């Protein structure tokens, strides 16, 4: 049992990395990875919201939408739940943990439209994961996002200080090509799960 969840988490982080293999959350991956502080802050905030969003959407879908034959409303209701949840978390954080809000608050509004959050909550339903499995999947995905942000921050700072990059490649194009190389590195992990746990 524990082995199964460990395999799921490891798979989310290394093999099916949310940014580098599933192409979700590329906007913050490119936009907020310039500084280490912000890369880590964004990664932690996304992990937090992912787990909270999964905790809220999974029961909503399973106990409310599905029995009433309204499964088609999942896209609409999930994005509303996520938007409301993010707002709520921000208000609560501001009131009770101002220091945490100071560190993570600035990332929260951005997370509503982070496709990783909506994407993972929908994928959990799609793959018919159980409640605990969904939560573990969300947590692992968040960690994978955090890892990708931290790694890419290192690559990014090298590119930004590099000399001799042609004008046309400066900025986004060189970042994308670097992301391609990082993602190629992550391809080396495929088969890892079967190798260890299989």
């Amino acid at each position: 049992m524990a082995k199964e969840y460990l395999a799921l988490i490891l798979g989310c982080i290394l093999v099916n990395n949310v940014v580098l293999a599933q192409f979700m959350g590329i906007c913050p991956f490119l936009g907020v990875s310039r500084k280490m502080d912000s890369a880590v802050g964004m990664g932690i905030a996304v992990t937090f919201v992912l787990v909270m969003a999964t905790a809220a959407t999974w029961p909503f879908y399973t106990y409310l939408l599905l029995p009433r034959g309204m499964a088609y409303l999942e896209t609409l209701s999930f994005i509303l739940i996520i938007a409301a949840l993010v707002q709520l978390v921000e208000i609560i954080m501001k009131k009770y943990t101002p220091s945490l809000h100071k560190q993570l608050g600035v990332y929260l509004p951005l997370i509503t439209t982070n496709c990783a959050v909506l994407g993972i909550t929908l994928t959990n339903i799609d793959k018919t994961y159980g409640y605990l499995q969904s939560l573990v999947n969300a947590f692992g995905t968040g960690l994978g996002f955090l890892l990708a942000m931290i790694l890419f921050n290192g690559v990014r700072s090298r590119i930004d200080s590099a000399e001799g990059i042609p004008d046309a490649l400066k900025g986004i194009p060189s970042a994308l090509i670097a992301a391609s190389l990082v993602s190629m590195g992550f391809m080396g992990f495929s088969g890892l799960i079967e190798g260890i746990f299989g």
Partner: protein
Amino acid sequence: MNNLKTFTNGIIRENPTLVLVLGTCPTIAVTTMVANGIGMGIAAAFVLICSNVVISMLRKIIPDTVRIPCFIVVIAGFVTIVQFLVQAFAPALNDALGVFLPLIVVNCIILGRAEMFASKNGVLASALDGAGMGLGFTLALLLMSTVREILGAGTWLGYQVLPESMDPIAVFRLAPGGFFVFGLLVAAVALITRGRVSHKEASGCTACPFADQCAKASEGGAK
């Protein structure tokens, strides 16, 4: 004349994908095959036109403070309609796009146009803007999936174009190829149209409705 300009704006000068670099996730994820790229482009264009029209009609009613959630609800409604249509008439496309079909909701091109254009302009102009941006997005996806399918599978829209004796370079259909081709295309557009396109910032996020917050965030949060 002005309307024509609104329409063509999105195709080249402010192409949402290749110039503004918005909507990167679907661009990289679905362009492994030309058919999927076109399908995604049309689905997003449909949502974009409809949501632009509705938001433009409602622009005087929606209170400013809650406009983003309102926009998202309108967009999510149209995305649900598109999901129904695709499931009914193109089930193969539905399987190929997978989770990226519902993820049109959080495609920043659509929210971006709602915020930047439809909430400030009339219905006709907003519809044309949506059509232009949608076409620009579709063309960008077509271009990118053409490169990836020809190099990665040796086919174009399912027809064999490269000789069968040539081994396709499979990595172009995988994640690294997606990032790589996208980077090169953005660079190529920047090179070809230098000075004539509105390359505001290297980061490409300026057209996103959350640009301010994102800029604040990339500064390292509150210090």
